[in-house]
């Protein structure tokens, strides 16, 4: 009996190991361990054994049963794993095929520049002020120390609608409107982005429509050095930490003193075609707010002073991205626009 059992075990373990698939393995399980299987048969014949032999034989049966079960389980795990491997192999794909594209557009380069500058100044405590593009002559000129007939009005060729209405030539009228809202009480700290218009024929460097961002700070004891410091921060954040600024005296009717602000060229002063060999690039106009402008906007110029600056997004974008023709901004060629969809 004992031998019979051992033989069964040997036979079953061999068959299990040789099983080709899960079904065959299951058949083996049923055949050897099932109710009608030989092991059960052996157990049935135990009644014939003596009381001494019975427990011994019982233990042996269990050992045999476990050995067979283990052999089947081991084989089963191996077969299952093979099946999964096979399925996975069948499911393999060419991972180098193109992905399913997610449609994505992007901002216009001028918006990128505008928002970048806005965020830079917001970080320094400025709010963003906006105003109408069709302006009254008063806000665009007169309140900015440019009375009718002033020769400096020739500096900005204007699109008039009526003698009193025009397309704003700069975003300065927003400064005036904001100051008036403050009713003579500082501080004022704003930047004013927006579209402006001048009577220019469109060519590579001129556009009848373009964008400006102006800044205005009015408070007690605002100094020229504050303007210089602020623009130095701007130039470094916008163009790079190694950039410097240079102020050159200039003239604007609404500021006194007035300056043009150059930013050092990326060529590092060696001279290149962008800076025309000078090492400096003209980027901004700025100055201390003219006392007449402060007074007309309701501020006491003996108490308050301020600075203002202005720049063109087109120019900044052209410098920053190396764009050679201002008309690109308004042609809306996707081959141009899509170059600016990338996060920098």
């Amino acid at each position, binding site marked *: 009996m004992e031998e019979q059992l051992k033989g069964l075990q040997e036979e079953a373990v061999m068959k299990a190991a040789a099983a080709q698939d899960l079904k065959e393995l299951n058949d083996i399980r049923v055949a050897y361990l099932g109710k009608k299987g030989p092991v059960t048969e052996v157990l049935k014949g135990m009644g014939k054994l003596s009381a001494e032999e019975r427990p011994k034989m019982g233990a042996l049966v269990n050992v045999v049963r476990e050995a067979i079960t283990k052999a089947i389980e081991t084989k089963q795990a191996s077969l299952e794993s093979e099946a999964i491997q096979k399925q996975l192999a069948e499911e393999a794909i060419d991972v180098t095929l193109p992905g399913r594209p997610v449609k994505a*557009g992007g901002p216009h380069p*001028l918006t990128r520049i505008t928002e970048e500058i806005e965020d830079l100044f917001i970080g320094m405590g400025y*709010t963003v002020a906006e105003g109408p593009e069709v302006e009254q002559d008063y806000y665009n000129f007169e309140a900015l120390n440019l009375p009718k007939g002033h020769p400096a009005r020739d500096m900005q060729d204007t699109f008039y609608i009526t003698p009193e209405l025009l397309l704003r030539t700069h975003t300065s009228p927003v400064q005036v409107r904001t100051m008036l809202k403050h009713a003579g009480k500082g501080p004022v700290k704003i930047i004013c982005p927006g579209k402006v*218009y001048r009577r220019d024929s469109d060519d590579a460097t001129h556009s009848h429509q373009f964008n400006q961002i102006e800044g205005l700070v009015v408070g007690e004891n605002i*100094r020229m*050095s504050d303007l*210089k410091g602020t623009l130095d921060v701007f130039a470094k954040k916008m163009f790079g930490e190694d950039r410097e600024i240079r102020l050159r005296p200039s003239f604007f009717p609404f500021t006194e003193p007035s300056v043009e602000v150059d930013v050092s060229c990326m060529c590092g002063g060696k001279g290149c075609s962008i800076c025309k060999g000078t090492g400096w690039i003209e980027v901004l106009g700025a100055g201390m707010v003219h006392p007449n402008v402060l007074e007309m906007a309701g501020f006491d110029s003996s108490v308050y*002073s301020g600075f203002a600056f202005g720049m063109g997004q087109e120019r900044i974008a052209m410098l920053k991205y190396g764009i050679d023709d201002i008309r690109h901004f308004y042609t*809306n*060629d996707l081959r141009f626009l899509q170059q600016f969809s990338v996060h920098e």
Partner: protein
Amino acid sequence: MFVSYKWLSEYVDIADQTPEELAEKITRAGIEVEGVELPASEMKGIVVGYVKTREQHPNADKLSKCLVDIGEEEPVQIICGAKNVDAGQYVAVAKTGAVLPGNFKIKRAKLRGEESNGMICSLSELGIESRLNPKEYAEGIFNFPTDVTPGEDALAALNRDDAILELSLTPNRSDALSMIGVAYEVAAILGRDVTLPEPSPAEADEQAANAVSIRIDAPEDNPVYVARVVKNVKIGPSPLWMQTLLMNAGIRPHNNVVDITNYVLMEYGQPLHAFDLDRVQTGEIVVRRAEQGEKFTTLDDAERTLSADQLVITNGQEPIALAGVMGGANSEVHEGTVNVLIESAYFDGQTVRTASKAHGLRSEASARFEKGVDPSRIEAACDRAAELMADLADGRVLSGRVTAGEYNPEPKRVSITLDRLNMRLGTDLQMGDVQDIFSRLKFKTEVNGDEITVTVPTRRGDITIPEDLTEEVARLYGYDHIPLTLPEGESLPGGLSPYQHGRRIVRRYLEGAGFTQAVTYSLTSEKRAVQFALEVRQPVALAMPMSEERAYLRESLLPHLVEAAAYNSARQTSSVALYETGSIYLNEGENVQPKEEERVSGIVTGLWQEHLWQGEKKAADFFAVKGVIEGLAARLGLMERLSFQKAAPEGFHPGRTASVLLDGQPVGVIGQLHPALAKEADLKEAYLFELKLDALLHAERKNLGYTPIPRFPSISRDIALVVDSTAEAALLEGIIKEAGGPLLMKVHLFDVYEGDKMEEGKKSVAFALTYMNPEKTLTDEEVTAVHEKVLAALKEKADADLRA
């Protein structure tokens, strides 16, 4: 303003400054030098030659064969094509091996069989613009006067070895519209003295006052008029040095008398006019306003009709000059002129500006009067011209000036405290530093404690308030020396307004949805101004447009977006998705600012989903765009409040267009570009949308709040309805929602079928309905009860049957 380095050095010592160094210093101190021209730098090998003989070229009618002495052992043979070449002339010769502007090299050559060893040059060939050449030489070669020697450097003789600084003057710095003015500026920068001419013409006994009398009838326009009389002048060319300096200053030489007035104009900044005294006829000068409609012929031979706001110089009977703008043909100095009257006056800037604008005549003179000339130079300039006419035109200066009126404005006195000056600049200057700067400017100062008072010479009319003094100090002290600081005082929280923030969210959403941002022009044609507009009004028109294409303000962003899509489509970018945010302008009546509203608009054409290797592709259609708009509404928390209503506005496909409504109010349009317009633009199917961005962003919305996540299961029931093919989905959905009541959580339309298996005129629309009770688990019976109600309502209101 062109400044000749040579000429400038007559007034201020600049010998130790190269033209480039000087230019840089002038720029850094406030007057931008746009360029430094060194004409001789691009030329070499040009000498004075003497034409010994000239004969006809044997083989060419239009060429001359000349033997020219160029200061070498043997004269050289040169073939010349100029008509005016002749023996006995002193000319500029580019020798063999010479280089002319544009790197034009002169080589020995054979011209029609005759050897030519060089070239006889015109002034334009030497780099002087032909509009500046004296008339007699403009068409041919230049002739030197006799005081030159063959072989000498022709470029030096012509002052071509000069450096010309091109100053770009801001309107406030009209003081630098003269050599003396620039000299003061340079002297201030370098800390040097200015040497002024001290004209003192030798006078004859004869009194000028006996030869002419002057009366001013319009003293407000002309406070002072000074004249001198020079008799017996000999009209001829002015000396070469004067002609060449004038050309370097951008002025064309004419004859000695006219050149002298121009020379003094450039030197002093005081415009002068020379009248032929005999042609004035009456010996009388009367300055008055023109009569309305009065006719007058200026010296350019154009007849002008004058108006009463213009000032004229008359001989007591008729105009002889348009004051400050241009002289008259009737009194012009000409070859036969013998006696000259020199006018030096102060004319009101606005009056001159009015006349110069009205007649489109802008001259060196009018430009200076417009900006205000220095009244202290009127007499000196007049004397200077008289002196030069005596010297260079052999004239006899009559005794005394004849003057009418008087204009001696007091120099302005402007004060500032040192404290305020330092406070404005952020500097720490001492009073001595400030005084030094003003002394360099040749301004007189008085110091009283902390306060400095500056007496500003009349030449600097731009300085009137303390801030102007601040600027003078800053620019001469140097902006580089001003420290870098940041504003002190209370710090403010910066930020975007909720609207500005919302606009950015809309932009980012659309970009994420596949749209690229466009920026188009606000100005457009009359037709396009109103095309596609949500609200059409008479468009706002420019008074003086530059072109018909840019004459009106747009009322919609769509026309230019269509144009942009067409532009791309024509360049092989057939799939386009563009959006724009920007203002449109609604007319509110004459002289009233238009209402500016912000729109967000877009266009899609071509493939919405590009062709994939899996075989899928999807053309842009109405529902692609509608989905984007719905998604935007969801992003803005407005989804439930947005609805779409069939509409057929102009420019859109009448069957594929909807009004977009927010809370039942129209806020936009979405639809297919009308096929006829698409064809016009050479576009395939294109879909447009335009929304009132301000309406969307200003819509009141709920604050975000948490709603508990449901704890009880929901039950779904699908229904397929057979309805008339015209039945709108929104109607069916509305019926379902109303009948479904609070237990109906969601209605989802998942299929529409119209075709063979349907009865003619019918379609099948399938919805998935989700029922749920947030309070408890729903029973099947409860759902069935509501569901039956829904089906009954659909049958009753839309004649909808369940599909078998």
